[in-house]
């Protein structure tokens, strides 16, 4: 079964998500990568309200034509790099969803449990499939400071496909797979 979720993502909706479920997101999502996370975790004011919102770990390719922003490619970037900042951002800004690839570490997993946040995985590299879900660029923030790749883009999406891999109940698919692969590695290199 595929669940549909529409922004704003309520705490009840987010807590109902389980690892392994597929989700289609609709409405507003916000992109952010290394520089934005560093900025937010340092306690700077977020240019948008992140409460009940979703941060998408993504640096899109966006071109400006005829006075409009056009997203040409928009797949997820590696979430693990944002691990040092994520937990404090979840706590401080009341974030509901994180979208990225590869899963995140123990402090994010703990923050997801404590504050009712959920991590969703999009398919890495699938920049065309994912950009097709973008209906509109609603705005861009910190463009001058961070440049186009690292800026915060406000995207309106329809049926953005992802998979729950770390839920608010503490289940964690990437951690399970990592553990199994480490066991296999020991067997294969004995």
């Amino acid at each position: 079964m595929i669940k549909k979720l529409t922004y704003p993502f309520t705490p009840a909706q987010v807590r109902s998500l389980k690892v392994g479920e597929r989700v289609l997101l609709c409405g507003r999502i916000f992109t952010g990568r290394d520089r934005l996370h560093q900025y937010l975790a340092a306690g700077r004011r977020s240019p948008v309200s992140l409460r009940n919102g979703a941060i998408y770990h993504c640096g899109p390719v966006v071109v400006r034509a005829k006075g409009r922003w056009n997203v040409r490619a928009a797949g997820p970037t590696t979430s693990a790099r944002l691990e040092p900042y994520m937990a404090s951002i979840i706590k401080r800004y009341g974030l509901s969803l994180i979208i990225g690839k590869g899963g995140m570490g123990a402090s994010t997993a703990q923050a997801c449990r404590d504050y009712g946040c959920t991590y969703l995985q999009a398919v890495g590299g699938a920049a065309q499939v994912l950009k097709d879900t973008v209906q509109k660029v609603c705005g861009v923030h910190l463009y001058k400071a961070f440049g186009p790749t690292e800026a915060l883009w406000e995207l309106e999406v329809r049926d953005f496909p992802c998979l729950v891999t770390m839920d608010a109940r503490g289940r964690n698919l990437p951690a399970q797979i990592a553990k199994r692969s480490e066991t296999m590695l020991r067997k294969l290199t004995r």
Partner: protein
Amino acid sequence: MPSMWINSLEQLIRRTSADLPNDVEAALRRAQRKEKPGSAARWALDTILTNVALARERDAPLCQDTGALSFYCRAPRRFDTRGLTAAIHAAVRRATTKGFLRPNTVDPLTRCPCAHNLGPGAPVIHVEFERRRTVEVRLILKGGGSENVSVQFSLPDLRLKAGRDLEGVRCCLLWTLVQAQGQGCAPGVLGVCIGGDRAAGAEYAKRQLLRPLSDRATEPRLAALERKALQDAQKLLIGPMGLGGATTLLGVKIGALASLPASFFVSVAYMCWAFRRRGIVLDAAGRVVRQLYD
């Protein structure tokens, strides 16, 4: 450099960013058939293959991380490389302006974008001279996720229990995949160099990625290691996008360089599934006379 050169090189960049080579796509299709419909791994591979087709049809970047650019050129003796370098730079500039490439190069100190993806050391251009009339240019676009998980080992390595032999090299390769999971987009390809000094080893490992997926190392011991490491990699069950599954790796390409008796480096270049490599042969006027990969 006349505009014909710039046009041909711009087309090479555009195509490399949008059109995944056939050997990689075929390997992804084989991986797709191995996953159960409805599984997370199958969902990932279905999405990946749809994306490959869309990018090709639209001539748009396959992945938003349009990668670091490495050009590998072969030119006739006494060929003017300043002209070639200038043409490559002009082509990169145009490809960035047109959105085939993301502004994807930053100053290491300020972290601010370098204009048009041009900066010290970017793009990387290698040129070799040989007796020939045409110029061959190959291009690899390698994303940050995959570059970040590339590694260099110095054997023996006690953490890995890897000794100074081919068995030790196999440990390094499997260890690399376990560390890379979730970060470098699987199923990927490993380019490997055994030996060399640190700089030459890292460069030669990446260069292995120019080889088609179907070939084998000519040295039989390396060929055997390529096969064995590939088989073992699938047993890790990391699977597409690290979601668990039958295919963790699409290929292993190993080369070797002479080294000091004291040194035993194993350099590993991890390439993600979005393995963007293309090549062209140009005549003296800069016209494309042949494509190097299907």
